[in-house]
């Protein structure tokens, strides 16, 4: 009995150890892959007309196609959230902190988070599946045989697109939400345009904007890089595609949470 128990305990410990090693290896591989992509990003040779074409198409599919939906969501969700926040501020008598709350909540937290969620749900899963299918169909090998650098041609435009899209869409979300906040400030507090803009300007902080920008860039980078890396994990079987997408999307979610936590820690230092 005791011998069996010991064997089970060893199995559990072994499993924990294996999982930890796999997680560490995965993290290390992701960082290594990220480093390769960053190097390529800053290399002039990486950019060709084909790369630019892919980049434009990627921006189109990720940002331009989603734009009407995104603007609608920004206005509806942003206005609702602003309305709720204003109501809470009014109830608690915290009108003095209106600007600080708006800038802190909308620009630093809400905009990047909503944008990254939307793009991750729509584009990251698509990139993950696309790369996995290409891997299963051996398209990547074909490109390699034709001496086409898959990083330059496939991965780099997608990662750059992720960074550009998250930054631009997040800024758009902030601008739209803060503009719709004007309506609520007028209705709830009787604030004029001048007063509202003064409140926002007085509370605006370059440090917040820089943190928000860095956060958006990091979000955009990893929500496209992780799906690419997990897409490459697909084997020759078609059944490996959903597994690759599933694992990739879970890691994307973990990455979003980690970046969010890190940015919060940074903003409080």
């Amino acid at each position, binding site marked *: 009995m005791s011998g069996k128990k010991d064997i089970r305990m060893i199995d559990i410990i072994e499993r924990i150890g294996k999982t930890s090693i796999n997680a560490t290896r995965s993290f290390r591989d992701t960082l290594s892959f990220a480093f390769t992509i960053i190097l390529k990003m800053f290399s002039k040779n990486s950019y060709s007309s084909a790369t630019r*074409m892919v980049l*434009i*198409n990627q*921006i*189109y599919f990720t*940002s*331009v196609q989603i*734009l009407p939906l995104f603007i609608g969501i920004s206005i509806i969700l942003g206005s609702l959230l602003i309305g709720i926040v204003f109501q809470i501020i009014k109830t608690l008598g915290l009108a003095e902190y209106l600007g600080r709350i708006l800038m802190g909540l909308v620009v630093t937290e809400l905009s990047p988070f909503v944008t990254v969620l939307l793009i991750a749900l729509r584009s990251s899963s698509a990139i993950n599946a696309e790369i996995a299918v290409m891997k299963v169909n051996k398209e990547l090998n074909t490109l390699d045989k034709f001496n086409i650098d898959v990083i330059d041609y496939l991965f780099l435009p997608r990662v750059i697109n992720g960074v*550009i899209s998250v930054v*631009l*869409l997040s*800024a*758009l979300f902030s*601008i739209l939400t803060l503009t719709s906040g004007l309506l609520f400030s007028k209705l709830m507090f009787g604030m004029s345009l001048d007063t509202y803009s003064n409140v926002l*300007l007085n509370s*605006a902080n*370059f440090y917040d*904007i820089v943190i928000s920008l860095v956060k958006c860039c990091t979000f955009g980078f990893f929500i496209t890089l992780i799906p690419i890396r997990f897409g490459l994990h697909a084997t020759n079987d078609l059944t490996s595609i959903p597994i690759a997408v599933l694992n990739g999307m879970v890691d994307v979610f973990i990455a979003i949470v980690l970046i969010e936590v890190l940015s919060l820690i940074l903003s409080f230092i």
Partner: protein
Amino acid sequence: MSKKVEVKVGLFVVITSVLIIASVLYLAYSKGFFTREYIYTLSSKSGEDLTEGMPVLFSGYKIGRVETLELNDQGILLIKIRIPEQHSKWIRSDSTFSLYKPLIGSSRLIIATENLNSPALSPKTIPEIVMVNDINESIKKVQPTLAKLDKVVTNIERITANLADPQGNVNKILSHSEKLTGNLAKKDTLIEMATGTPESAQSVNESLKKIRDLLAKTDDQVYGNDGALPLVRKILKDIIVKLEKINTALDNVVKISADASDSTKDLKLLRTEIDTTVNSIDKLVSDINKILPSKKEPEIKLP
């Protein structure tokens, strides 16, 4: 398709980039990023309640902020404040810098300038910050009231202790009052209660009656038709008439004395005239004597 996509993507990127750049530039402009700023250094023995980024106010208006806080070699805190050029005119050599800590809310650095014509504060000068603490001020204001309140509470405590004590003054007064009201209930009158017996009360009543009769008589003798007062009034009237007569006589005396005074003046004149006349006669007699010698010719003795 490719051209259309390129245009759409180009428009998206350009419009959103312009929006972002315009917002950031507007923010930078509003925050005074493009205006020249002056840095003044202040000192304080304590860095309590001082934070970087704290607003600097003049007449309740934000004119700058605390840039950095650092300790010098002597352990004194140096506070660098950043003031935009358009607000630097409010900081003069006689400006006072105080750290105001309200009861509720965050601390702020307040600048007060008495004379705006005094010379501008040199950035090399390091004035010291004065601490203004609302909590301490409030405690100071409340302390006398608390002391009074303490006295009141002590007095109330004493009164309640007295009330609770059966041998206390209040209880004694109450028992005496009870006795008094009991006695009052037993007796017919207040005088009877005071004197003790009904006979004494009757005696007091009789005495009072006698006094009343006596007063009636006195009243008749003093104020009656033949009383003392009408006679006094008659005498006084007579005296007044006589005094009026004396007054007239006195006026006459005054007039006579004035006349006498005038007469003496006339007498002096008369005397002068007499003197002059006598002198003239004397001269005349001398002249006559010269003309008509009355004595014999003196005998001339020959040698």
